């Protein structure tokens, strides 16, 4: 090992910081957690993020945040939001998570307004709400089609005006636990110069987002490589519902460089219609009631089926058309989409239809947490946002993720604060640190080896081809075998000629390691779930099966082995179960009763 590397493995020389609470991730969940954690009793809080502040994946969210504010549809309330969420999740959601969520999200949205967020307004001067797929009412608070930016910017400025230290462009590579498996800290490096840093902490909140980058065609940002889920899994945390990966029906398809880039559901929310190559509105066939605003899994599969039947568009998708609406309206409501197509695809969406096809969008699975505190099974480790799981079940509703990160970001921050208030500082074994430092440096010391960018592409292709929207025993098994081959090669990744200073090749090594591990877990979960449910579609088991739907698949490491355990889905108490006795949502029923049982659709 060259000397400039060797002296860094000397653990004495590693920069150290001590905080009561460390939050890994500065997306909506991480920032909301930081705000909550730094309130009240004086505990020290820092946020660690691998990007610059304000750039996290959350910034890309477009359509809106779902909350039953009932500003435009007065019959909406938490119970209807809860109903929609459970129903779209095909009832493998954790009901308690969904209940807390639906009850609290309106307050979280209003709080953003108090902190300076400016949502679009109704004529009465309230927060405007737009319709979205499979929501019973118009429910999404938004600012044009740039809602994520509004969220992150508001939270970012709130956090920096509070007692929160921010470590930007610091990549965390490992969670550290003591001999009893309790959280002791976080290890990472500054991207700027590659120097190591150790954060000792009583509690750690993971808010590292999802792993949509594990797929080739994806709407996700560079960051979504699942580092947090992988790091937690390695220290014994449980992952659940990992087979559940959402494919959003409308991604861009052309030109090649933008393939997968999201076309917000807001386009359909604002009236956009889907056509096949024969100019037929095919959604009328697949879901006559909800039509274009059916749930994402249904719309994505419908586009796929149209293509299988030879009715696809030139690049294998469907046409989406909003050009029949006034151009000024489209530009006002969907400014980002208008600009995105104009500059990147030479298409004017106010004048012509455009091609869309499914794209990997969201990971419903993740760290298994307790609804009220967001605690994982690792003492001192909390998780919130896309990295956690339980709210969305087998299919996430549009707009529910931005609500998720607000509600559970806050709860994770509070949970961590309570825990840290009575926790002791834990010991970190220097040998563990040495091992981690050596592991992180290894790719720089190898003269020859596998190129991380190429491995990343192969991994993404494998996941898209064999564990994508359409799955079978055979495809999944082939995929798993390929990942195992890739894993062997990945052990020899090398970053030739590079130094530790701002080296994206080096960074990609860890991205690949995270995604490979999670890819395996996804495939194992998908093999275990021998049915089709929500986003998980098995050609060899095309039906929903009640006995399989009664469990969540929980995975954890035992030694080097991944074990998978079917675990009963928590059973709803009677007062919640009652909401599902009728086949209409509570608010829709209330409205119908009031109107003397008239038609009760939107």
């Amino acid at each position, binding site marked *: 090992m060259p000397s400039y590397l060797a002296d860094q493995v000397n653990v004495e020389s590693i920069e150290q910081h001590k905080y009561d609470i460390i939050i890994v991730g500065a997306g909506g969940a991480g920032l909301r957690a930081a705000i909550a954690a730094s309130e009240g009793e004086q505990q020290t809080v820092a946020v660690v993020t691998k*990007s*610059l502040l*304000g*750039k996290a*994946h959350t*910034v*890309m969210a477009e359509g809106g945040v779902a909350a039953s504010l009932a500003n435009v549809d007065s019959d909406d309330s938490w119970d209807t939001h809860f109903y929609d969420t459970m129903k779209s999740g095909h009832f493998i959601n954790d009901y308690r998570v969904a209940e807390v969520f639906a009850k609290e999200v309106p307050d979280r949205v*209003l*709080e953003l307004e*108090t*902190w*300076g967020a*400016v949502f*679009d*307004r109704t*004529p*009465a*001067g*309230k*927060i405007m709400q737009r319709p979205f797929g499979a929501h019973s009412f118009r429910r999404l608070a938004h*600012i*044009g089609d*740039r809602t*994520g*930016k*509004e969220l992150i*910017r508001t939270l970012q*400025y709130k956090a*920096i*005006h509070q007692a929160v230290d*921010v470590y*930007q462009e610091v990549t965390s590579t490992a969670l550290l636990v003591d001999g009893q498996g309790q959280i002791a800290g976080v290890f990472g490096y500054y991207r*700027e110069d590659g120097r190591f840093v150790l954060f000792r902490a009583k509690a750690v909140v993971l808010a590292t987002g999802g792993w949509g980058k594990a797929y080739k065609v994806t709407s996700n*940002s*560079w960051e979504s490589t699942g580092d947090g889920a992988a790091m937690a899994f390695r220290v014994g945390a449980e992952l659940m519902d990992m087979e559940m990966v959402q494919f959003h029906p409308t991604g861009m398809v*052309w*030109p*090649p*460089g*933008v393939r997968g880039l999201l076309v917000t559901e807001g386009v359909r929310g604002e009236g956009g219609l889907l056509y096949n190559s024969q100019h037929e509105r095919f959604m009328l066939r697949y879901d006559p009631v909800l039509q274009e605003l059916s749930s994402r899994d249904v719309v994505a599969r419908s586009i796929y089926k149209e293509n299988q039947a030879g009715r696809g568009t030139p690049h294998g998708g469907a046409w989406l058309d909003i050009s029949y609406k006034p151009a000024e309206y489209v530009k006002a409501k969907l*400014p*980002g989409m208008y*600009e*995105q197509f104009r*500059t*990147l*695809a*030479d298409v004017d969406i106010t004048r012509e239809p455009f091609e869309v096809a499914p794209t990997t969008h969201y990971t419903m699975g993740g760290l298994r947490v307790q609804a009220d505190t967001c605690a994982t099974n690792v003492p001192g480790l909390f998780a919130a946002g896309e990295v956690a799981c339980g709210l969305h079940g087998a299919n996430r509703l549009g707009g529910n993720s931005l609500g998720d990160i607000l509600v559970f970001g806050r709860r994770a921050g509070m949970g961590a604060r309570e825990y840290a208030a009575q926790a002791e500082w834990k010991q970190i074994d220097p040998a563990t640190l040495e091992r981690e430092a050596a592991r992180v440096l290894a790719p720089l010391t190898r003269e020859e080896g596998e190129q*991380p*960018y*190429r491995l990343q*592409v192969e991994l993404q292709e494998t996941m898209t081809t064999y564990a994508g929207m359409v799955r079978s025993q055979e495809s999944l098994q082939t995929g798993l075998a390929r990942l195992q081959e890739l894993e062997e090669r990945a052990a020899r990744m090398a*970053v030739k000629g*590079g130094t530790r*200073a*701002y*080296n*994206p*090749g080096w960074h*990609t090594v860890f991205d690949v390691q995270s995604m490979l591990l999670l890819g395996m877990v996804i495939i194992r979960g998908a093999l275990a779930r021998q049915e089709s449910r929500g986003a998980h579609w098995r050609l060899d088991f095309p039906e929903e099966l009640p006995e399989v739907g009664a469990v969540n698949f929980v995975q954890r490491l035992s030694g080097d082995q991944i074990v998978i355990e079917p675990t009963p889905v928590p059973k709803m108490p009677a007062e919640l179960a009652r909401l599902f006795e009728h086949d209409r949502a509570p608010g829709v029923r209330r409205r119908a009763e009031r109107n003397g049982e008239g038609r009760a659709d939107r």
Partner: protein
Amino acid sequence: MSEEIIILSVFRGDADGGQEQEYRVPLETGMVVLDALHYVQTEYAPDLAVRWNCKAAHCGSCSAEINGMPKLLCKTRLDDYVGQVIHVRPMHAFPLIKDLVTDVSWNYRVAKQIPAFQPSTPAPFVMYQRDVDRIQEFHQCIECFLCQDTCHVLREHEGQERYFGPRMMAKIAEWDMHPMDTKDRTAFLKDVAGIPMCNVTRCCVEVCPEHIVITDNAIIPLKERVADVYWDPIQALFRRFRRPAKTPVPTEPSSAEG
């Protein structure tokens, strides 16, 4: 598709110096400069430093100078430069870290000093769309700092000690013009944020990828507010839109600033 090759000349180096290096990249339909840089990373230089997150012009990470113009790498098409060598260099106004990556932490330091939004009551607010149209423009900012990079005050030696720059003026305007805000930022604008340093050259507006009219819609009205409180002959020039230092009720139409 086609076998056309383009030449990308990319700055490689760090604070100790460096130079441009040429790379040959096959052109694909619709390719942006960031795609080309990714090709370079995969094929020639895995350690080429470039910041990016979204590749959709949403996050403002990928700011650089392309043939001398401050631009987003992910929004700049290669076919805009047919027949030319494309020179890609880091932003000039900020200290270089490596290759195309600069140290933009100064922006975050000054942002922290801006007195935050202070509403008269907690939400829900009653605000009409016409009252918020003008501030929603500032909410479009992606914090790419291209306007900061282009502002001659900040490019000059020590300018960053005297002026917060156009991005921060838009941020201040966003809060200061919020119908519910109660905070007085005039002294701060003048003495700390340095708004008098801006001489309204409008260069910042030209480069803003979000098409925010920073000068006319943020800086000039803010200068007005300052001038209302502190008389200053140069600022008097910009008294096109006279309005009270703080609008108390949220009913004023906002069309004046276009």
